């Protein structure tokens, strides 16, 4: 018997064939549905599963000082975190990790026993330690690379530079102000990974340009360090609350140093109080006191209401205006304008002020930049306060002439003094000298003149009078620097007690602001000491800081001392100088084969000269050289020893 004969079997087999045909048809349709219709949907889910994007923060830009020394840089560190759920043997993990992470074993154990699925163990530890942890290859302990900002100069310049938070964001200072160009966009790394979380194919290459810039500051790190050192010493000596010391180049408005005490270390900023982070030179305002007399003088001379020799009666230290009595610390009779400034007579200042009138004084204060932001490239700057012409009462006018009833920032004070130093121009201060992009393209900050405030002649006259302050009979003798003439003004202001709204008898602000060398000003230095105890006078408290910082800086920038000869030359050529960049230091004229003049040199320079010439030098007296035996110009031949007489400059 054969199947061919049995039709019903054939029929049933056909039927089964149809069933299979239908089955395969359904399979084909389903495959079509999955692979063609739902393709995009399924593929996107699948890609989300094995495609991972990792964001690697780019290194922050470096901040350099003007000499190219690193002030802030980004370094690679590692952080360690735990997935407590995935740790098999927590005790073993704790025992192995404790010595590397420098932690207590039991404390670590407690952390690992927590229910949470993610815990940072140590953040931003050195790469070496990170590698050690990685080498343990513990399950559930993950080591990731991170970046942290490192400030090699520690406290030096920290108020200016600021710092960066744990997530690479600028929090204070320049790090915050320039965060957008220092930070740069993070690298985005896209790769495939298998179900064991192993990456196997990087599908996207790194961007080469991610917008990171470096900053070059106007700050000189060494000067900044020494300014901070000198200021710290003075604040400590006078047991003051805080202090500020600004060094500005008057010719272009560059901030060479901006020292603030109390200091903080930006590497460990969180250990300091936020009040320590504050850049007090721009954020704190106070009543300036007598330093304003310099600007009163400038205004009055410019308006020609007085001349340096105009005489005023200083009323023997007590002057009654209406119901108010104004006192001077030193009683005096008739004084000329120059002496009023030199001795900082309040009565004299009021009388000069009355000649000028408050309206003009107010205008000039505004022109000098008080009461408005300097717009320096830093954050948190304040305006200060000037009483307007209409709202002022007569007694308040009187007080304004010696700097009471208005508030200023130290930076405003330094910039206003720069006007006098540079021949009458208010400059815009700045701390960022250059911005360098990642291709090395440099964008240099151009100095900007905000306005002409006074004429050059007036500036020279004011300078000449201010030179008297740092002399034997001036209030700022402590600021005098040997071999150089210093022009400046002291200030001792009383602070207003916030409770009583009256001037405190005990709380003062001691100020000295000036420039050196006064005949060719290279730097304006403003020193402000807040609440010194004991003697509060600006000359006494702040003057020595001016001297120390000035002396160091003059030496550091290789500025030659003023000889009388050089001084005359400088004087006559001052106009030209103030317009052009500083000229090369005055050469000491040496005819070949003859003895040079040592007049006006300090002792050290004289000794150096003598050593260079191979002559034994005998020093007599102290101060600056004023006489020498044998005289300058004598033939060098045959001279064995040289006698140099010194005396203090007056």
């Amino acid at each position: 018997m054969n199947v061919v004969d049995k039709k019903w079997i054939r029929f049933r087999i056909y039927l089964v064939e149809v069933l299979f045909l239908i089955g395969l048809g359904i399979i084909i349709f389903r495959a079509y549905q999955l692979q063609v219709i739902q393709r995009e949907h399924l593929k996107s889910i699948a890609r989300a599963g094995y495609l991972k994007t990792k964001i690697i923060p780019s290194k922050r830009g470096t901040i350099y000082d003007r000499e190219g020394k690193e002030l802030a840089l980004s370094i690679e560190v590692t952080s360690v975190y735990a997935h407590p759920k995935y740790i098999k043997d927590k005790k073993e993990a704790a025992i192995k990790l404790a010595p590397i992470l420098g932690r207590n074993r039991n404390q670590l154990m407690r952390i690992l026993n927590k229910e949470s699925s993610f815990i940072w163990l140590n953040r931003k530890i050195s790469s070496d330690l990170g590698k050690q942890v990685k080498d343990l290859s513990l399950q559930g302990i993950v080591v990731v690379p991170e970046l942290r900002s490192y400030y090699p100069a520690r406290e030096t310049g920290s108020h200016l530079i600021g710092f960066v938070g744990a997530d690479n964001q600028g929090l204070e200072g320049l790090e915050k102000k320039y965060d957008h160009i220092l930070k740069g966009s993070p690298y985005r790394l896209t790769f495939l990974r298998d179900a064991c979380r192993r990456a196997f194919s990087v599908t996207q290459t790194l961007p080469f340009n991610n917008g990171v810039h470096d900053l070059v500051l106007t700050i000189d790190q060494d000067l900044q360090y020494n300014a901070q050192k000198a200021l710290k010493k003075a604040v400590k000596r006078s047991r003051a609350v805080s202090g500020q010391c600004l060094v500005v180049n008057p010719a272009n408005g560059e901030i060479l140093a901006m020292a603030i005490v109390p200091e903080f270390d930006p590497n460990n900023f969180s250990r300091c109080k936020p009040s320590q982070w504050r850049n007090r030179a721009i954020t704190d305002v106070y009543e300036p006191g007598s330093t304003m007399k310099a600007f009163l003088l400038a205004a009055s001379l410019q308006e020609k209401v007085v001349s340096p020799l105009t005489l005023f009666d200083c009323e023997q230290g007590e002057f009654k205006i209406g119901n108010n009595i104004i006192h001077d610390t030193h009683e005096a009779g008739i004084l000329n304008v120059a002496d009023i400034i030199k001795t900082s007579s309040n009565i004299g200042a009021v009388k000069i002020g009355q000649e000028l009138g408050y309206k003009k004084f107010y205008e000039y204060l505004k022109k000098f930049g008080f009461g408005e932001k300097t717009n320096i490239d830093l954050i948190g700057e304040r305006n200060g306060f000037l009483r307007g012409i209409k709202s002022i009462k007569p007694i308040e006018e009187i007080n304004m002439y010696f700097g009471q009833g208005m508030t200023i920032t130290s930076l405003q004070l330094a910039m206003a003094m720069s006007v006098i130093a540079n021949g009458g121009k208010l400059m815009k201060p700045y701390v960022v000298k250059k911005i360098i992009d990642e291709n090395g393209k440099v964008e240099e900050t151009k100095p900007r003149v905000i306005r002409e405030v006074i004429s050059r002649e007036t500036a020279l006259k004011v300078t000449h009078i201010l030179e008297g302050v740092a002399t034997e009979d001036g209030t700022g003798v402590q600021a005098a620097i040997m071999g150089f003439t210093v022009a400046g003004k002291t200030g001792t202001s009383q602070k207003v007690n916030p409770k009583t709204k009256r001037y405190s008898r005990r709380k003062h602000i001691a100020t000295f602001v000036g420039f050196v060398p006064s005949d060719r000003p290279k730097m304006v230095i403003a020193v402000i000491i807040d609440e010194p105890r004991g003697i509060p006078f600006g000359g006494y408290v702040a003057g020595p800081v001016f001297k120390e910082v000035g002396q160091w800086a003059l030496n550091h920038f290789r500025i030659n001392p003023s000889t009388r000869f050089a001084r005359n030359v400088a004087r006559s050529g001052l106009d030209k100088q103030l317009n052009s960049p500083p000229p090369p230091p005055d050469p000491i004229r040496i005819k070949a084969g003859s003895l040079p003049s040592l007049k006006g040199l300090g002792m050290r320079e004289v000794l150096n000269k003598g050593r260079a010439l191979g002559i034994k030098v005998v020093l007599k007296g102290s101060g600056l050289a004023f006489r020498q035996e044998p005289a300058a110009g004598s033939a060098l031949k045959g001279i064995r020893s040289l006698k140099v007489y010194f005396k203090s400059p007056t």
Partner: protein
Amino acid sequence: MVDKKNELTTSYDYMILIPTIFLIVLGLLMVYSTSSNMAARQLGDSCFFFKRQALFCVFGLGIMILAKHTPVNIFLKLTYPLLIVSIILLAALYIPGIGHKVGGACRWIRIGAYSIQPSEFAKFTLALYISYSIRKKGLHMGTFAKGVLPHLIVTVFFMALILHQPDLGTAAIIASCTMLALFVGGARKKHIAYLMLGSSCIVYFLILGASYRIERILAYLDPWKYPHTHGFQIIHSFLAFGSGGIFGEGLGESKQKLFYLPEAHTDFILSIAGEELGFIGVLIIIFLFGCIIFRGFKIALEARDLYSTYLAFSLTSLFGLQVLINMAVVMGLLPTKGLALPFLSYGGSSLVTNLLIIGILLNISSKNKG
């Protein structure tokens, strides 16, 4: 009836042989593609599974050629001995120390470095038995007691042994295969209907009886609801198919095989094939399988004697059901079962048994001509 000249013929039915060779080669490629990463990571030899599969191929092809040249009546005589061997092997799984457990199921007997899966062999011997038995019952097939019941008893006995492993998938294949054979063998439609009803009830209670089966059914109905448990595997299978699209990611380019999709080189090898070769590749595979299946039925229709018809039919059905059910499972049309896809999935027992089936079909086919 049997012609000596025909018996010695070396002519092969290329309509079956060529698709088989294609599928075996494709299977070897896919086994290597899907297992190399896993083997390299877990066993330290990326070719581990490939080499073994190649060895099974050689052995299987030998068996196929042997079966092709064995006179058909030898199979008749071997039916009972093979049936008994099958039962012994299945029963041996219950003996502690012999049964080898993988993933909670005791389906393998370990022999040295290799293991055999008795249920693969059991499927084949049962088909052999049913064909023999239907032929013997002849006209009695119309009655329930004489025609249907004996087959039912043997089948249920086998199913019981296999279900206990547990292996619901193979049991379902055996049941379906028996049912198709009985249907073609002359059982009444009424009886078939009863059987279907009865087995549905049994399946229903079996599912209710095991909590993991209920979860599997729920995951089958909506896998996206259980993405981390029972839906995990089928979701990744979908993702593999979807990623492949029309033209595929290219041979070796699958992402899902990188430890995302479990059993990528065995039960779910078609998913990876779909990802790497695309819808076109899947169509080709289905076409090749279709060739074998419909050629098998053609051989059954043209067989010279009824036994050959039944044998060719039940073996083709067995082969076809494995293909259909595996494909339906990996595409989410049926609940997940541990079933291999003939020729493509890694596994010696399945490969050798399926080549044996092909060998017998070639054998019957060669008699049909002449």
